């Protein structure tokens, strides 16, 4: 669906679902998950349906991710940092 931009010389190395992925500096964690090719990034706590980033501007809450072990982060609102660990959010977070 999306075409990846050419890899920037100053690409940031992050980890998505345990795999190393190089993403443009300034990209969001949600963008990193898309670049990594995740078809879905979370499941709905209400229905269990697979979901994926949608609005990419902080409104829809569809892109919730576990970022550096912190659950339910809005992935589109978090800028990647070198070494960031990004994982799918399965259902609702633990308290």
């Amino acid at each position, binding site marked *: 669906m999306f075409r990846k931009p050419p890899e920037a010389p100053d690409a940031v190395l992050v980890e998505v679902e345990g795999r190393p992925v190089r993403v443009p500096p300034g990209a969001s964690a949600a963008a990193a998950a898309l670049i990594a090719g995740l078809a879905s990034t979370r499941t709905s706590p209400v229905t269990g349906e697979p979901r994926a980033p949608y609005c990419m501007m902080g409104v829809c809450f569809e892109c919730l991710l576990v970022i550096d072990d912190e659950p339910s982060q809005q992935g589109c609102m978090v800028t990647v940092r070198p070494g960031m660990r990004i994982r799918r959010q399965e259902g609702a977070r633990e*308290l």
Partner: protein
Amino acid sequence: MNAGTRAGGYDFVVVGGGVVGSSIAFGLAERGRRVAVLDEGDRAQRAARTNFGLVWVQSKGDGMPAYMRWTRRSADLWPAFAQRLESLTGVGIEYRKAGGLVYCLGPVEFDARREKVEQLRAQADIYGTEMIERAALERLVPGARFGPDVVGASHCPNDGHCNPLLLLKALHAALAIHGAHYLPDAPARNIVHREGRFVVDTPRGSIEAGRLVLAAGHGTPALADAIDLPAPMKAERGQILVTERCRPILPIPGSGIRQTQDGTFLIGSSKEKTGFDDSTTVAVGGRMAARAIRILPELGGIRLTRTWGGIRVLTPDNHPVYAESARCPGAFVAICHSGITLAAVHAADLAEAISGGALGPTLEAFHARRFHVPKAA
């Protein structure tokens, strides 16, 4: 002109399409009455859309045993009411008769709550609330890790909770299924009693009916005088905090914390006199959050997603007012807080009485004339 709604007119026009008006209208429609429900639009200040969703018995009726019995009666009717609504409409309203808790932080709060519970128990034999110490509380809610200040709670097995937005949706769907006419964007501007009938003027035309139920929340006083109905009221703001969804740990709702079926925590509950200003404040939200975190410290690690304020519909003594007009017989008024708790009894006993044409002796205690009687010393 008329709103083009029903040839031959209506048996009842219900002014107010919130939970109170819709519950009564549902009960009337179930009894075969031809009903029109007049409502405001989406921007209406609506208690039905700002409340916490408790079916709550354990704190109701202090000073009015009739109200305590009425509340308990509604809680007893709720399971069948919820099932009836769901099977009729297909709308799940997330009702659970899970019991309810009022948490006590420290021995002083525990003793004060125990005193209150004993006071209430002395007023009616159906109260059914017990004080439980921390160990019993932990057995009751094994998934929750309570803070060190929690010494216990009062627990009432008759309490419960539901999703109030879905309840309103289900009631509106049920009205349509029973052939009642729900008219949004049709706020009543004026009511005239003429030749034994009621004519309500709305921006969508006039609606005429043989009888009328006024259940317009804080819109009631402006309409009540013309048909000689009492409308003693006061406003009180409540604020609510809403968190992100979490795995379920708290199946039992509490007076200030409940976890919804989808995992959201709702945190309340404040009481402020701010007129009809329904905005939220950081000061009150912060105080509510701080108390919630003392009860469940792990709440401190999750995010709030939104807050809202709402205006409670209250009479001067906080108990409901139900009355029929003396000068315009056939006009009834219902003013109350706790529209969710009372929804089941409103759709049953109250609708039955109104449909039958008289409120009768059970509801006599709820007449507004109680405010006119000087209290004995």
